[in-house]
């Protein structure tokens, strides 16, 4: 049971950890000062959420958040590949589209978790909702506007969505032993969450000509396995940078 709980919490925490990290790569390099500032808050929020999820495990006698984040083998992570993807070519369309797809999933996930029978998770989800509300507002406001603006913006968003689409679907890859978690009332099935996610994003993307067919099996398969410990080709470089300083003096305090 503890192992299942750990899997569930790590999938949530690891997702937030690396998306916060990827968002943070933009701090100081954003398209305009005001947006740089706003996006930096979102990066901090996600990173803080990761820490809060890990803390649930720490409270059960398991390692500290720093140890979970900085001291694991690649295959021990449970994040989706979507969050491991780099900020390809510093394309802000990719940054925004990833943020949009991810925070829609967060909205749906957190709402479901507030009803979790595992109380620490339900309580945390309730707390995190106020920050996620801002993330969703930010993402929606940007996508709705950019999608209706210039041809160039539309073209870039479309290309970004094409790239990210199978990865976003794979956010809902069923967790190992998921039926037991669903049975215990910890979380609804990934499939039902995915349906809610699609219902949330379609009315926003379709009117701006950005809706897509579900990804094919060929597109989806490379993105799967993440929840079982299979990492994307981008993980090694990501984690090497992530741990560059912490690994230089493993037992030091910083």
């Amino acid at each position, binding site marked *: 049971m503890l192992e299942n709980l750990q899997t569930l919490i790590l999938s949530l925490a690891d997702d937030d950890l690396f998306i916060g990290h990827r968002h943070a790569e933009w701090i100081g390099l954003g398209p305009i*000062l*005001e947006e740089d500032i706003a996006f930096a*808050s979102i990066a901090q929020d996600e990173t803080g959420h990761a820490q809060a999820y890990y803390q649930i495990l720490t409270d059960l006698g398991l390692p500290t958040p720093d140890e979970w984040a900085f001291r694991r083998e690649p295959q021990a992570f449970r994040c989706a590949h979507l969050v491991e993807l780099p900020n390809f070519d*510093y394309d802000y369309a990719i940054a925004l589209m990833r943020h949009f797809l991810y925070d829609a999933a967060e909205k749906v996930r957190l709402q479901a978790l507030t009803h979790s029978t595992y109380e620490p998770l339900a309580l945390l989800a309730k707390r995190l909702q106020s920050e996620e509300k801002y993330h969703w*507002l930010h993402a929606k406001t940007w996508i709705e*506007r950019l999608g209706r603006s210039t041809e160039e913006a539309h073209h870039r968003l479309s290309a970004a969505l094409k790239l990210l689409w199978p990865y976003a679907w794979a956010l809902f890859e069923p967790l190992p032993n998921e039926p037991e978690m669903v049975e215990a009332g910890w979380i609804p099935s990934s499939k039902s969450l995915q349906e809610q996610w699609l219902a949330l994003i379609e009315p926003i993307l379709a009117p701006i000509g950005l809706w897509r067919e579900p990804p094919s099996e060929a597109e989806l398969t490379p993105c799967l396995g993440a929840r079982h410990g299979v990492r994307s080709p981008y993980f090694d470089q990501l984690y090497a940078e992530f741990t560059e300083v912490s690994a230089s003096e493993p037992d030091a305090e910083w």
Partner: protein
Amino acid sequence: MTSLDPRIRRAEPRLSQISQVQLSPLDQWPTYEVFVQRTRGSHVQHVGSLHAPDPDMALVLAKEQYARRSQCVALWVVPTASILWTSAEDEDLFQPATDKSYREPQGYLHTRERIEKYRHRLKPAS
């Protein structure tokens, strides 16, 4: 040029290919004035300005630039162009020309003195 910053290295080769950049007028969007209500019951106060493309975006962006740390319960934005203001030359409009203490509490400090004077008049001459 190889940067020590991995984020910057990842921006190559495009970064090094950019030589001159010139922003055209309004590239940075128009400005909005921002007002914040710190707590329920307090006045909504001007705290600064920001650049935004439209009112909704102004609210979204103002939330982080002006309220990410400070306590805040509400936020207003107004296009700078919508604000009307009195000019500096007209600062004297706000200065009264004559004594208007008749409409201030401190214009009524002599009542005690009057009572004392009256009591004094009433006392028989000794």
